[in-house]
């Protein structure tokens, strides 16, 4: 879409204001991670103290480890399971598929708190039957459960775009089912799978409500630790941890973007020399 010049100025202004709004609290957090007192609004000098303390704070590090572990495991398992489930759904008749997709969508449209509460009720009632504790296992199950729908939702559209004949053509040419699947279908739907994986990972990482209800008493995710701290005094160590996390993601994104820009430039250059392929 092209817009007229005068609109662009207004658009840029709005974009700038929204970014200011989105980043203001983050800037505050980052700045006060270097504050030499514990205050979260009065600046009293520069220090790296909180970064040092962070690496000796077992509780925060432990909950950070659990958060990452759950997010990675849940995202990977959900992506594998969700991809196969999506392929299964795709090959079903319209009626059952519609019903199953509606159920699949439940955790997506439902409020987190209801998903969390209902799973807690399940785990607590199953606990008395099977004698287990709420903990890492239940947390992981909960995360997988709310991740799979996102994977399915991002893989499904890719399946719809798929040319049905491709798969059969491959098999007619002698490919086994597995070969046809991994060489033909998988590459086609890969963007959907990767997108699903990323969404699942982000969802897990940022989740608080569902973890809060399903993690039991032995472990805490980072969000839960922050929540319990937010109701007393948050230690600036948490600011330091988030600053590190945020910085890492920012740098990663920059690196990826700069590489892409370089490649584009290369591409332009090489396309200048006619008929000279890239490699």
């Amino acid at each position, binding site marked *: 879409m092209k817009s007229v010049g005068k609109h662009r100025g207004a658009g840029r202004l709005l974009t700038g204001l929204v970014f200011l709004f989105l980043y203001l609290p983050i800037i505050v*957090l980052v700045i006060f991670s270097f504050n030499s007192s514990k205050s979260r609004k009065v600046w009293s000098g520069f220090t790296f103290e909180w970064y040092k303390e962070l690496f000796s704070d077992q509780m925060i590090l432990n909950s950070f480890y659990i958060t990452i572990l759950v997010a990675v495991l849940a995202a990977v398992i959900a992506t594998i399971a969700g991809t196969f489930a999506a392929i299964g759904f795709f090959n079903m008749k319209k009626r059952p598929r519609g019903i199953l997709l509606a159920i699949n969508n439940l955790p997506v449209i439902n409020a987190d*708190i209801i998903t969390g509460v209902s799973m807690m009720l*399940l785990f607590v009632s199953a606990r008395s039957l099977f004698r287990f504790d709420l903990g890492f296992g239940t947390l992981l199950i909960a995360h997988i459960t709310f991740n*799979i729908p996102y994977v399915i939702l991002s893989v499904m559209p890719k399946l719809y775009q798929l040319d049905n004949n491709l798969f059969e053509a491959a098999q007619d040419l002698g490919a086994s089912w597995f070969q046809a699947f991994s060489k033909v279908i998988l590459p086609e739907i890969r963007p959907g799978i990767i997108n699903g994986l990323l969404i699942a990972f982000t969802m897990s990482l940022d989740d608080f409500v569902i973890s809060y209800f399903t993690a039991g008493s032995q472990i805490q995710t980072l969000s839960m630790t922050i*929540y319990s701290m937010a109701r007393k005094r948050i230690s600036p160590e948490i600011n330091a941890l988030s600053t590190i996390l945020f910085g890492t993601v920012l740098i990663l994104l920059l690196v990826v973007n700069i590489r892409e820009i370089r490649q584009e430039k290369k591409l332009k250059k090489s396309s200048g020399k006619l008929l000279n392929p890239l490699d």
Partner: protein
Amino acid sequence: MKRFLSIPYIVWMAIFVVAPIILVVVYALTSGSGSFTFENFAHMENFLSVFIRSMIMALIATAICILIGYPLAYALACEGPRLQKIFIMLIMLPMWMNFLLRTYAWMSILENTGLINSLLSALGLPTVNMINTQGAVVLGMVYNYLPFMVLPIYSVMVRIEPSVVEAAQDLGANSFKVFLRIIFPLSLPGVLSGITMVFVPSVSTFIISRLLGGGKSLLLGDLIEMQFLGSAYNPHLGSAISLIMMVIIIACMMVMNRFGEGEERAVML
């Protein structure tokens, strides 16, 4: 026969999606001693004010998100491809910083001795009481969920074929007419999915109201949390309230879908 691939997940859904919801229904329809009862629904009118307040605040937050998010998505879609990419990254980036912490940071900004008020009094202006008000809670909702409004609208807007717009212009439509007749209708699915993605978490939040509302204006989420892990243990009543909330949400979804005509595929991030 590839549909068998979905059987494990169907079993999984039965256990971890359907069974829990059935449990909520069972809890809502039983009393503490386990006998069947409608008692939990009998005093629902006590909570009418909470229902109404939650709805109104979530609606206001959703409306503000549309008012900011729609022009923003439009502006983004008008940028060049590289800038577009960077801006979208910038919108998603905050989500990588823990949302509790971001919300908590607003406390430092909004408090009576916080950053805004310090700035105001340094300039010799009167201070404003912002924290622990319903306005602060709405601000928290808008802040947290605005990206969920911008992204779906943006993703349908970039898919509008430039040729359609050009054709309309060639046929003499001015830019206002182009917007009204072409861009707006085509972007509607994005708006609808944005609305659900903002409204549902807003209406059910309990963190934002707790951190920014000072515990003075209970929302539906607070009410439910209170009955399960909070200060007034009664999972049966909590389940009944959850059930009603769920019915409201699903009813809203169905109304939306009617407008959206199964566009759900178009718009997940």
